[in-house]
């Protein structure tokens, strides 16, 4: 049965039920009539699970109307997709468009004197709040970024772009709570990650290398030629030297991978090449600056190649070398395949994606096309093989429920993800958040998922509006089995396991779920919210 026909059937159900006493049984006996998907729809569902933050109620039909391939091509070219609704909702977040200089000025840390007075008790918390209102504190910057991330995850039509922004931010992770980074984050995501998310990997790599967020986070801004003596400022006279932090992570995490065939000597040489890449006025407008006085002008030898470009070009040459390296192609390919296919990336597919990297010079779209067309991606046992990470779970639950989410609600969703273990922009290590099942599946986190499902379905999340009535297509709540069928169709698209269906059917027999009206005569009132929470907390819904 095609989807439009199913819709008609759903719409007609109440009428049929009204007029036909036997209808209850016949409907209960044929849940597949509502839930079943044609083979094409199963493929569409799988693609949606992997390429978006989970299907919304109408998404399968929309993709079917366009055709999967055409829909994917549109997702690969997000500029052509109208996204005014979500853009509109983002305008309530003033920090998103601000420069680093503006953010430093408008959302400053309390000055030393204020901090001292507050710490010594000379200033009360109330006075502190008055002089330094909460919505003008630096924490606001991060809260707005978290809000924007979830608004887009739930509401953007450019779903693949949002998935890739998350992917690349995580790949080139920086941590909100390290020093100045929180004032740089907004620009980093907006000007570095987002424009290149579906662009060319070498461009993305170069953009991250020069941004104050990365320079600060991995300490390169402090790295100077060995033996350099600080000329000015509070550390005047101190001998400083190389900081290898960026050099090491650049190779281990950004390009070659830990087994990419580099040595400690390569780390030191790369660190020498990047000396002088620093931040000008880090507490004001924080711009990239090459400072020749701290650069090591000697020759460097990286991965067997001599680099003698001299000055700022040394770092550029290292980036070119790393971006073109076969180990980088394999490492990036492996990570993409792990995101889109399975935790255990099929080696043959990784090789094909790496080959595409080599022939296209790291064109991210080309790599994704290879993945989306791959039999490994479409294979039946790939469906549901990935465990949703917390932000994916939270966003997919809101999308599946057809929730209306405003800015407050988006922040509530971000907090929900943090409660389950994934604080957005709050991954401290340079590895970012993990993308493997075992990192996310543990008792505390699973319980937190169930409790999130309950809050969402019960309508207890501020700023997140759910309408369970719409969700079940106006099914008669006096018909618990019908309600359940609609719910499983809407939230799991008929992919509920036998066990889940049996458990939920058994729940229907409980008086708490099928509440009778007070006079005990009227129609039973099925607790749709509770059933929906159980479905969102089920094993099936944790997978994508």
């Amino acid at each position, binding site marked *: 049965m095609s989807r439009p026909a199913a819709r008609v059937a759903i719409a007609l159900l109440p009428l049929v039920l009204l007029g036909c006493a036997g209808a209850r049984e016949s409907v209960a006996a044929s849940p597949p009539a509502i839930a079943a998907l044609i083979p094409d729809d199963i493929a569409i569902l799988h693609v949606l699970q992997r390429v978006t933050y989970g299907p919304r109620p109408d998404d399968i039909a929309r993709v079917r109307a366009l055709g999967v391939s055409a829909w994917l091509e549109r997702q690969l070219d997000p500029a052509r997709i109208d996204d005014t609704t979500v853009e509109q909702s983002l305008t309530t977040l003033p920090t998103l468009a601000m420069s680093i200089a503006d953010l430093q000025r408008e959302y400053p840390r309390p000055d030393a004197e204020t*901090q*001292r007075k507050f710490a*010594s008790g000379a200033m009360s918390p109330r006075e502190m709040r008055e002089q330094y209102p909460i919505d003008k504190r630096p924490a606001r910057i991060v809260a707005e970024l978290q809000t924007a991330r979830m608004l887009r995850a739930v509401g953007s039509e450019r779903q693949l772009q949002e998935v890739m922004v998350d992917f690349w931010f995580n790949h080139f992770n920086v941590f909100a709570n390290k020093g100045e980074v929180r004032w740089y984050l907004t620009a980093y995501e907006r000007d570095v990650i987002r424009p290149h998310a579906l662009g060319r990997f070498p461009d993305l790599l170069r953009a991250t290398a020069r941004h104050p967020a990365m320079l600060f986070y991995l300490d390169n801004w402090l790295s100077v030629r060995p033996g350099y003596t600080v000329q000015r400022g509070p550390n005047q006279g101190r001998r400083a030297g190389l900081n290898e932090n960026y050099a090491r992570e650049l190779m*281990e995490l950004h390009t070659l991978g830990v087994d990419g065939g580099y040595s400690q000597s390569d780390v030191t040489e790369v660190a020498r090449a990047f000396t002088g890449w620093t931040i000008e006025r880090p507490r004001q407008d924080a711009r990239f600056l090459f400072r020749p006085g701290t650069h090591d002008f000697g020759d460097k030898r990286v991965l067997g190649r001599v680099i003698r470009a001299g000055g700022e070009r040394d770092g550029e040459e290292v980036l070119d070398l790393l971006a073109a390296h076969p180990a980088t192609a394999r490492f990036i390919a492996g990570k993409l395949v792990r995101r889109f296919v399975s935790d255990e990336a099929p080696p043959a597919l990784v090789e094909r994606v790496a080959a595409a990297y080599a022939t296209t010079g790291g064109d991210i779209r080309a790599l994704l096309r290879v993945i989306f067309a791959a039999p490994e991606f479409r294979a039946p046992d790939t469906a549901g093989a990935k465990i949703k990470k917390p932000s994916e779970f939270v966003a997919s639950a809101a999308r599946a429920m057809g929730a209306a989410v405003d800015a407050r609600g988006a922040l509530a969703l971000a907090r929900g993800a943090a409660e389950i273990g994934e604080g957005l922009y709050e991954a401290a*290590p340079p590895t970012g958040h993990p993308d493997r099942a075992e990192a996310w599946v*543990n008792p505390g986190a699973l*319980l937190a998922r169930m409790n999130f499902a309950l809050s969402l379905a*019960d309508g207890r999340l501020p700023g997140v509006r759910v309408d369970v009535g719409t969700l079940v297509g106006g099914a008669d709540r006096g018909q618990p089995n019908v309600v359940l069928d609609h719910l499983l169709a809407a939230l799991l698209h008929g992919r509920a396991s036998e066990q889940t269906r049996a458990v939920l059917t058994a729940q229907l027999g409980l008086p*708490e779920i099928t509440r009778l009206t007070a006079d005990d005569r009227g129609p039973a009132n099925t607790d749709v919210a509770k059933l929906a929470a159980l479905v969102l907390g089920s094993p099936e819904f944790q997978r994508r």
Partner: protein
Amino acid sequence: MTFTRRALLKSGACALAAMTMPPRFLARVADAAEARGTILVAVFQRGAVDGLSMIVPHGEASYYAARPSIALPRPRRGDATTTVDLDGFFALHPALAPLLPLWESKTLAIVPACGSPDITRSHFDAQDYMESGTPGVKSTPDGWLGRAAGALPAARATPFRSVALGAQLPRILRGDAGALALRSLDRFEVRTTSQPAMTQRGFESLYGEGVRDLLHGTGRETFEAVRMLKSAGAARLTPANGADYPRGRFGESLRQIAQLIRADVGLRIAFADVDGWDTHVGQGAEQGQLANRLRDFGAGLAAFIRDLGDRLADVVLLTMSEFGRTVAENGNRGTDHGHATTMFVLGGSVRGGRLYGRWPGLAPEQRFESRDLAVSTDFRDLFSEITTRQLAVPASTALFPGWTPTHAPLGLLG
């Protein structure tokens, strides 16, 4: 055959499906006394605590010379605003005075110059290294307490063998053995406004027997833990012996760890952290920012020890911080990132009432890089000695890969 859930996982989903899930919880012994094992509690002071303010070296003239506005006064008997003398050279910060009885009863030992061989002054790198236990190596996937958990006998493991108080599992507890992270015991349940018991049963059946994979296994473990916690009544245990925990996250964490210990749910390793130590500006002295944090810290530790009563015989608590702070105060009456700091060890089997490790001295030429207290005890020496003794993990366990002890044992535990 014993194996952990996570080790199973690594063998792949197919292999997993073919195996029988180990009846780990069923193996739990009914006799609570037998379930009692020794317990290690680790407390991380995140942000780099000024060890020189925890244990004040009042015998060092350099200390007073370097800190004109934030040095703590020399001890004067009977004056509660001064430091509390320990041995004529070191004294406790007045805000840590509740720890004096523990020093006197030899329950508290102090390692005054402990830290990492790595010279980083980045909080995040140094915390990472202190948790992974591999200074200078970022690629270590697990944490040293996680590795310690992996070396404990699996047969009697309960879901509460390794527990961190907090939303996320900290790096220090990561590892194949698995660990539980929870924010609060009384919130560790299915939370809903209506029919919580029925809702819990619903979720539980969704993860019931029948399917053997990571999700279902974890689901069963989750409800096992929820039920175990409830039936042990852990969240209902009120502090014993008149223990009075300070308000706030740290006191709450310790109070709940004590509840888990007293409820006999199989706890062996617990972790809590406490922040607010990064005192670059307006550090204060007898009063002020740092004094407030230390008051909370000392009161929490003292309440924990009191609460445990006789159970303290089974427990060792270890405090740590990623590095210390500069000897000299800076231009903002605070201190900047330094090197060595002070670590405490408390417990029934601790040979307390004394300091361990060489004191490097504070004279400028004795300092690390001319500015910081030097490290005389590698943190791995301390952590390794305590962990192997307290948890009886086999000596062959690579708690700290790539490291061999640089000292004879300190002899901290009796």
